[in-house]
């Protein structure tokens, strides 16, 4: 068959075709930030801080009717196999942009005129699918910061590996596979706020892939909720 898929349809890391990697989300991990979250998505390790709403600097940036959302997706030099130059790459600038555009529809920015909300996504270790994990954690951190939101944003990729449509592509599958399609989804409003595709899919494969990615997002959403509930609705008294 193929080195990415064993004879009994197991993937390189032993997962089935519709299985997510192990996901762990923790809320409120940075004391200074207004909101923060830490996520482990397979081998991805990402920390997100939210600062704001705060006064816009320089002042001319401010909009009279709403807040400005700014996002920075940044990889640590040691987060990948070969040291990454710490200066923002073109890839990181693009991911910062699509991340902002994926999160913005969920936020009620009109509630905070003349302000800025900063989202800092720091990738400590990367394992394929880091933009989705970053968006997922950022959404949790924004909720932790108490920003008014219409919905959460849950993100997950699907793709094509060894001829099969599979959920949640890891690093190896991304590099050797046939297609990778990151998706972000607003689970209650049923809206897609991030969609990218690298690789070839037929029209039917695309439909299958998108449906599978959305199923993955719904699973991620459940974990986001649980993480927030643990912090805010836990009956345990904090020491």
């Amino acid at each position, binding site marked *: 068959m193929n080195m990415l898929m064993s004879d009994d349809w197991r993937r390189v890391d032993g997962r089935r075709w519709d299985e997510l990697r192990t996901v762990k989300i923790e809320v409120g991990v940075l004391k200074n930030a207004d909101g923060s979250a830490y996520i482990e998505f397979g081998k991805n390790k990402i920390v997100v801080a939210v600062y704001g709403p705060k006064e816009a600097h320089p002042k001319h940036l401010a909009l009279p009717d709403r807040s400005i959302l700014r996002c920075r997706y940044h990889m640590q030099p040691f987060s990948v196999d070969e040291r990454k130059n710490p200066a923002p790459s073109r*890839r990181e600038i693009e991911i910062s*942009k*699509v991340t902002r555009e994926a999160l913005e529809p969920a936020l009620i920015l009109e509630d905070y005129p003349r302000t800025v909300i900063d989202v800092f996504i720091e990738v400590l270790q990367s394992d394929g699918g880091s933009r989705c994990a970053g968006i997922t954690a950022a959404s949790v951190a924004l909720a932790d910061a108490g920003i008014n939101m219409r919905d959460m944003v849950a993100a997950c990729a699907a793709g094509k590996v060894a001829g099969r449509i599979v959920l949640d592509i890891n690093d190896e599958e991304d590099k050797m596979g046939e297609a990778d399609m990151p998706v972000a989804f607003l689970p209650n409003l049923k*809206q*897609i706020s*991030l969609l990218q595709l690298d690789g*070839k899919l037929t029209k039917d494969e695309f439909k299958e892939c998108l449906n599978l990615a959305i199923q993955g997002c719904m699973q991620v959403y459940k974990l986001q909720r649980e993480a927030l509930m643990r912090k805010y609705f836990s009956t345990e008294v904090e020491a």
Partner: protein
Amino acid sequence: MMMKRTSTIVEHLKRIQMIELLAKGKRLDGRGLTDYRELKIEVGLIKKANGSAMVKLGNTQVIAGIKVEVDEPFSDMPDKGLFICNAEVLPTASAYAEPGPPDEDAIELARVVDRGIRESEMIALDKLVLISGKKVYAVFADVSVLNTDGNLFDATSYAVVSALLTTRIPKYEVKDDRLVKTEDTIPLPINTIPVSVTMARIGDSIIVDPTSEEEMCMDARVTISTDDQGRICAMQKGNPGTFTLEQLNNAVSIAIDKGNEIRALIKSICMQAQVG
């Protein structure tokens, strides 16, 4: 790159007007929802380049030039040539464009155009090897936006694709592990013609080829590239704003249909140029 938000009030009024018209299947400039503006492509206008194309899509105007050099391959891909795509919005493009390093919009533009071409495997990079692991052809595509009136993604992509289709590269002979340039030129090895189709959602309507005015009012944008066989090879959603599942499935069908039309046009122009 795109027109800055000048007045939220005017934008709001325009948007209302647009949505009313779209409900009747019409647009401000009289087009139907899935009509492109007039597309004009001129190829081979820059003689110093290995390939070139000027694209006019309505008032959006873009020029692409291809330069081919001999370079060393990447260490992890010793048997593949190189393709590097860059895009820039010139200060000539609008009153809001300024000189300086590319901003995030220009970076996204270049990366989305690059992705459509790379993922479709338009250029047979494995046929661009001169000496395995040592010398390969490096294909540089540089695109500049001269005038903006929306849909830079498609205009830029058509310009690069047309320029690549009419590119001629110098032929080399290998003598004792050294390269000797000959007088002959050959075309680039081409597998397929990828065509990008960009759509905007305004309210509940999906329109193709948005103008600047429509881009100012759009909720969300999506660019879908397809190949000869109607396969999707790259996608990018843009702008804050969302799509539903049904809207995206609809967009994919439009992208395949429109892609075929535009591919036929690009093909006929580039074939004619090669004969003439």
